[in-house]
């Protein structure tokens, strides 16, 4: 009863901390969005270089997400359904790209692509170049984005009771038929959420990309270049446009996961 009249100091502490965190996240972002004038924003978006870099960011991230989807879906399903020796180890390996410093990722990929390495040698014979190409960008973005897709899709598959699949099989559906008629309709939201997260992660990558490809320029590299060459004021409008793209992805993700919860 007493606690009702005089709220616990701990309650005040939690409110204070929560507010601080929210402000800490939102304040710099909103300030940055509102600092450039509309005129600046308009000019920036008409700048062909900026447009090209934003488009390149979206394009390469999208390709990275599609690759993650193709290779990651069966893998995520396997991890969700089967127990095998060394599973924990495999799961840790998937999380590695999240832990490794981003420039290190770029250096590791470049190390493979060099002519001194047998793989780089083969690739150069096939005409595949990594350094300074869209291919290189897609490779590092897939590297950093893949774990987000796999982990989200895996959680989605785990949420589908294995008994539903058992019953479908007993009713005559093949393994593929069961996946398409039972598992997929129940897990597609998670898979879509995984694709969006993978995309969002890839779009924001800077450290790994700048090692592999300064040119062609993706949006984060462009922002960095504008900042170092012309200063804060010139980098901000590009940043705002990149934030807009990220926000759209973020909103999509929310819509997908919220309507998913309502259905469950």
């Amino acid at each position, binding site marked *: 009863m007493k606690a009702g009249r005089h709220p616990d100091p701990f309650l005040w502490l939690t409110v204070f901390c929560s507010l601080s965190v929210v402000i800490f996240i939102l304040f710099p972002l909103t300030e940055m969005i509102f600092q450039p004038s509309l005129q600046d924003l308009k000019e920036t978006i008409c700048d062909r270089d900026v447009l090209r870099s934003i488009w390149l960011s979206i394009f390469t991230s999208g390709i990275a997400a599609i690759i993650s989807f193709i290779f990651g879906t069966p893998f995520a399903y396997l991890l969700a359904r089967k127990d095998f020796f060394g599973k924990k180890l495999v799961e840790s390996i998937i999380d590695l790209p999240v832990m490794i410093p981003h420039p290190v990722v770029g250096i590791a990929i470049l190390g493979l692509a060099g002519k001194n390495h047998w793989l780089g040698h083969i690739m150069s014979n096939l005409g595949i170049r990594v350094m300074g190409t869209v291919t290189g960008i897609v490779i590092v973005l897939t590297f950093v984005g893949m774990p987000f897709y796999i982990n989200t899709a895996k959680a989605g598959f785990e949420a589908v009771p294995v008994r539903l699949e058992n*019953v479908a*099989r007993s009713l005559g559906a093949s393994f593929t*038929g069961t996946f398409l008629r039972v598992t997929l309709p129940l897990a597609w939201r998670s898979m879509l959420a995984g694709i969006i997260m993978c995309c969002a992660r890839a779009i924001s990558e800077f450290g790994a990309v700048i090692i592999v490809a300064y040119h062609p320029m993706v949006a984060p590299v462009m922002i960095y270049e504008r900042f170092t060459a012309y200063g804060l004021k010139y980098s901000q409008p590009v940043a705002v446009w990149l934030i807009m793209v990220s926000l759209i992805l973020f909103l999509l993700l929310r819509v997908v996961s919220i309507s998913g919860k309502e259905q469950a």
Partner: protein
Amino acid sequence: MIEIKAMRIELSGFALKELDLFIMDGEFFILLGPTGSGKTLLLEAIAGIVPVTSGRILLKGRDITNLTPEQRNIGIMYQDYALFPHLTVFENIIFGLRYHNKREQNALKKWVEWLINQLELRPLAGRSIRYLSGGEKQRIALARALAVKPSLLLLDEPLSALDQNFREEIRELLKMLHKEMKITFLMVTHDFSEALFLGDRTAILNRGEIEQIGALSEVFTRPETPFTANFVGMKNIFQATFKGKKARTNGMELNLDSPPGKNRGYIAFRAEDVLINKEDMTGDGRNVFQGKISDIIDRGPYYDVAATSGKLMFKAVLSKSDLVQLGLPAKKEVRIIIPSSAIHVL
């Protein structure tokens, strides 16, 4: 008919020991056993969901050991219904139809109509399966499994998740459907009364091993192991040695109706067969002991009573009126009477 020959399953945490089982066409076979005895594992092995380590499974003479679940034509029904949440009731029921050719489908459609009417699912057909009652869900699961006319239907505790009134309803339905159709049923349960109501024969499973196979009435009256005896409700089980028509246990002697066969080591009898009285009731075939009531537990319509005599503790069941008649303040001297005809030797 289904035949399981020397089947063994080894998993990392559990093993189903080598077992043989034979289920006849059209039989309602019950697999009885406590939680963790391996019942569900056995079912899933028959369905092809769990691979067997060794041994064979034959369905109507055909070796199905290495077939995938969809090639076996064996239906499975789970306790939690396992309905497809993204499909309507009707879509759930006809899920398996498309895996048959056109001619079969036409025949099956009529059959599905019959099932839907029998199970009173017509009014639900277009609905989503959310917000249905447990009884409705289990009726849908039953219709879905039967729609493809399986050669064998496996039922994994189909009644245990249901409320009492739904449980009786589904139980009746199962019995009716089994009678109407010539499909073999293999049901797993841990509830003996359910088994008695539905089943023809049973296998008692304990820790991955079959303890006894036989007609339900036979297993009920003549359990062969202490585990089975306890499982079918013989709450009084004592290790004993035998001499002629007498059994000795813990320094006490009990008269039997007939001399026991060879290699017997236990006597067992039901709590319902133990009488507790104030007076002596000596007579033919009665074992009477002087004892004390040591515990009384109120079970609502009746009482569970424990009475000790010497080193033995007997479990008995008394009605309210019995208890009143005894005028029992606890710890009072009573006579414990066990008819020799009630004593089962194993």
